[in-house]
């Protein structure tokens, strides 16, 4: 396997001040002091890591770069490597109780909040899921079982897709008699969900990584909120 490209100045177009600022933002996270103590560089995290088997990815390098406060290298990792983690937290077996996986969680959040190109690219394939979860509160829905959606799921998907409504109605709980969402979601829940998105500012994250998606979601939400009597709630 090729070694990770740890060469410096790979992103020399980004200033050191900006790289320092991004790392300072990660360090300011209240979880930070519990995710990195000191690193023996023993490699137990890599040994346990499923992603390291398939990608050019090392949780040890993440921990080391962060321990060394090497903001140049950290930026390089944020631009690429941190998106190869599957967030399974197998690395939590560290004898020093470090958590490379949680370091990555925080670095990813910083990347999203700051609209880094890598975050946009990594989330590109998830537009449909983000759309669904933001608007319905559920992520996986039966109507995703379209013949062309997941070819690797096999030919039986054709049959299921054809009679989806019937299959769902065969399930005993009435709340599952739907195909557009995982289960039936009532209006009150939807409105409360949108109010939570509004109050927590979570939509700002989405506008940073996908402006078009943001516009579509906000349109739907503002309309539903207005119908429910929340005329004064706007996202801009």
């Amino acid at each position, binding site marked *: 396997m090729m070694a990770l490209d740890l060469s410096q100045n790979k992103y020399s177009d980004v200033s050191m001040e900006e790289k320092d600022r991004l790392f300072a933002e990660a360090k300011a996270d209240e979880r930070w002091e519990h995710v990195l103590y*000191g690193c023996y560089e023993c490699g137990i995290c890599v040994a346990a890591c499923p992603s390291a088997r398939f990608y050019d990815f090392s949780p040890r390098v993440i921990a080391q770069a962060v321990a060394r406060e090497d903001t140049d290298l950290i930026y390089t990792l944020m631009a690429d490597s941190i998106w190869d983690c599957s967030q399974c937290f197998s690395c939590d077996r560290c004898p020093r109780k470090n958590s490379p996986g949680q370091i990555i969680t925080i670095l990813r959040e910083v990347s999203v909040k700051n609209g880094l190109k890598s975050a946009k690219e990594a989330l590109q394939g998830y537009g449909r899921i983000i759309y669904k979860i933001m608007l319905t509160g559920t992520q996986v829905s039966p109507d995703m079982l379209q013949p062309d959606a997941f070819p690797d799921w096999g030919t039986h998907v054709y049959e299921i897709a054809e009679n989806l409504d019937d299959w769902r109605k065969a399930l005993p709980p009435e709340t599952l008699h739907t195909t557009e969402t995982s289960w039936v979601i009532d209006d009150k829940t939807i409105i409360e969900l949108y109010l939570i998105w509004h109050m927590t500012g979570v939509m700002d994250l989405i506008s940073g990584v996908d402006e078009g998606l943001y516009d579509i979601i906000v349109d739907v939400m503002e309309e539903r909120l207005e119908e429910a009597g929340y005329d004064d709630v706007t996202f801009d």
Partner: protein
Amino acid sequence: MASENIIVIGGGPAGLEAARGVADLGYKAILVEKRDRLGGTPDEAQYAALTPDMRSAKEAMDEMRDAVTDNSGVELMLNTTVTGSEGELGNFVVKAEQGGKQIDIEAGAVILATGFQHFDPGRETQKYGYYEHDDVITLVDAEKMFTAGNFVRPSNGEKPKSVAFIQCVGSRDRQIGNEYCSKVCCGISSKQAIEVRHHCPDAKIYIFYIDMRMYGYWENEIYWPAQEKHKVNYIKGMATEILKQGDHLIVKGEDTTLRRPMEVPMDMVILAVGMEPSVGTKEMAEVFGVNKNKYGFIETIGGALNTVSTNVEGVFAAGACTGPADLEDSVSAAGSAVMKSIGAIRKAAVPA
């Protein structure tokens, strides 16, 4: 004429503890020291704080000195150099020079506690430029600075913004001939890194190492706090040389675990020099006919079960004259030497 006195040669930690122990057991210790004061290397080199508990070295040495001073069981002979020895267990006559005068000291047994000396980083190799660059110092130089309470760059008197420790200087090196690990330097460097942090809160501090050897409680008492609380960066990789560039030193090495070469600018470099047998240790080995190992330390013959007996009956050795040792090792070995030497005298005194 048999003597029940025990001569202890060397007034450092091992010798001080041995003399105190002999007196505590009701025998008489004759403590011989060539310098004009007691305390050995911790005193002579002006150690600041002990590893790992950060206790003042001066305070600890004072405690040890007090235990043998005005002690009716200890006869102190300062400014005294042993030059020869005759006799055997129960009947040693040790020749010494004191103020230009030859004296004979009668003793039933001998405890050698002549210690070590710090490796001279200018010996054999100049790659780190110790005698070339003002800002390249040793652990020993740093101790003096901490004792004086003023840790600054020798070149300009300013506080350093970056400090690197280089481990295993003069140890674990076949080129130099010192193949052994000096045992204490990892702990002392880590302890000093914490002291550097107190003096220079914003400095970048690095320790370049081959293996960190922080056994037992040194791990949690020194290593983890240095790394976790005091943000000392441990980088596995040896520096190959130190160059001067403008106002800075350039440390050239490899960051092995990140697999990339390093050329990092530093304001100060501290060489973690190891231990070698002191001149006194080598001389006393000759005087008493005691075997030395290939590195010049006194060889003890009992393996793990007896760390103080030598090939000469009635001559025992304790502390860093037998190999790299920390204070705990030295004091423990001194206690063992006291027990063995008194035991030997008592057995010899029983008529056959």
